[in-house]
């Protein structure tokens, strides 16, 4: 049995841990509100962009000569995966969930005998992947210094991807991120951005005849690179909201666990204190009786 002093020390250390997790929860909660707001505000833009591209690609007449970013390079050999994670830890299963999802995909690619290239965005993803996939990681990007997800950063990532695509370094590009559903649920997503898959939101596309100015091809070739950045930006926004949500619930759990632990330790402390008192009393009484 631990001595009274030890128990006292443990209780106070658990209490101070609880204070930290509580504070982190509060910080995450206030950041979450902001991140959630911007994620929701950012959705119209990316949705609209998607819609326009969908309409454009539906009405494009010459499918064979359409821009490579839309139709792909015609091959399926080298896959580029952009894994988007956070830069900070202590956010529950947030990073692990993305990595898990990505690893399943990586395995599939490798089993099919294709080439795999990885770009990690956020340092936590790199830390988790470097052990297994060190040779596959071609670039690591981290935006530690920017406080909030912004379009400028997303554009940088987008440019890197497009640059590599134009150098024919890969054929298919997929991004991994967490979609924010609510505070407790974040869904890891994989989204193929090159070539563009337009399976989703089919019902939104209409057979409207659009007038284009300039020509469709020209609009598309200008729009597609922008769309990549927009999709990345969307992923970043969703990610940052998910990160804060995940951290908030993780810290909430930690605070509660710490509370339970303090209760348990306090009971143990009181019991052993009582035991010690009883022991002393017995000693005194039996001493008096023997006189």
């Amino acid at each position: 049995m631990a001595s009274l002093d030890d128990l006292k020390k443990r209780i106070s250390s658990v209490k101070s841990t609880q204070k930290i997790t509580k504070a982190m929860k509060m910080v995450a909660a206030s950041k979450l509100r902001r991140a959630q707001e911007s994620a929701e505000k950012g959705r119209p833009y990316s949705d609209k962009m998607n819609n326009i591209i969908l309409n454009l690609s539906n009405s494009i007449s010459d499918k064979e000569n359409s821009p490579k970013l839309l139709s792909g390079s015609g091959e399926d050999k080298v896959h580029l995966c952009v894994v988007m994670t956070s830069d900070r830890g202590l956010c529950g299963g947030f990073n692990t969930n993305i990595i898990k999802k990505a690893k399943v995909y990586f395995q599939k690619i490798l089993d099919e005998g294709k080439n795999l290239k990885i770009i990690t965005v956020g340092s936590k993803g790199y830390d988790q992947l470097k052990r297994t996939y060190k040779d596959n990681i071609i670039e690591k990007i981290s935006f530690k210094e920017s406080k909030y997800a912004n379009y400028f950063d997303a554009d940088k990532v987008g440019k890197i991807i497009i640059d590599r695509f134009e150098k024919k370094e890969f054929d298919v590009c997929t991004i991994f991120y967490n979609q924010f559903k609510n505070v407790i649920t974040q869904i890891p997503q994989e989204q193929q951005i090159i070539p563009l898959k337009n399976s989703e939101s089919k019902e939104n596309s209409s057979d409207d005849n659009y007038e284009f100015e300039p020509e469709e091809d020209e609009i598309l070739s200008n729009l597609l690179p922008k769309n990549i950045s927009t999709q990345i930006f969307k992923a970043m926004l969703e990610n940052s909201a998910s990160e804060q949500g995940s951290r908030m619930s993780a810290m909430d759990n930690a605070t509660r666990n710490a509370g339970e632990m303090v209760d348990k330790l306090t009971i143990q402390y009181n019991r052993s204190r009582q035991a010690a008192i009883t022991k002393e009393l017995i000693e005194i009484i039996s001493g008096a009786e023997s006189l």
Partner: protein
Amino acid sequence: MSEGFKLEIVNPESSFLSKEGVTEVVVPAFEGDMGILKDHISIISFLKPGLVRIFDGSNEETYYVDDGIVEFKNNCLSILTSNIFDIKKMDKNVARDALAKAEQDNQKKDISDQNKYLIDQKIEVLKNLTLN
């Protein structure tokens, strides 16, 4: 039945402006300024740097955009842009900085004709803005 149509301006960070009952919008389309009235044919076009003018009855609002895409469909005009300023609230210094940067870009030798055209447009618009 309202006389106007719906206008939405969104940038990546948020929905910048949403308005019902707009009577006319003049956008700086890539191949020249383009006025859009109600029941315009569905159209998708690009923007070059310039001014977006929104007429709403007797009111007029003017915004500066760097680039963007416009889509008009079913009497709903969407403008997607990454950079937009209300010129009434626009800081002259911001405009001057942008102008200086554009002029610097213009000095570069390896720009394509298309970019050159865009930058020339930008310089012209910004010059007008900074003068007023």
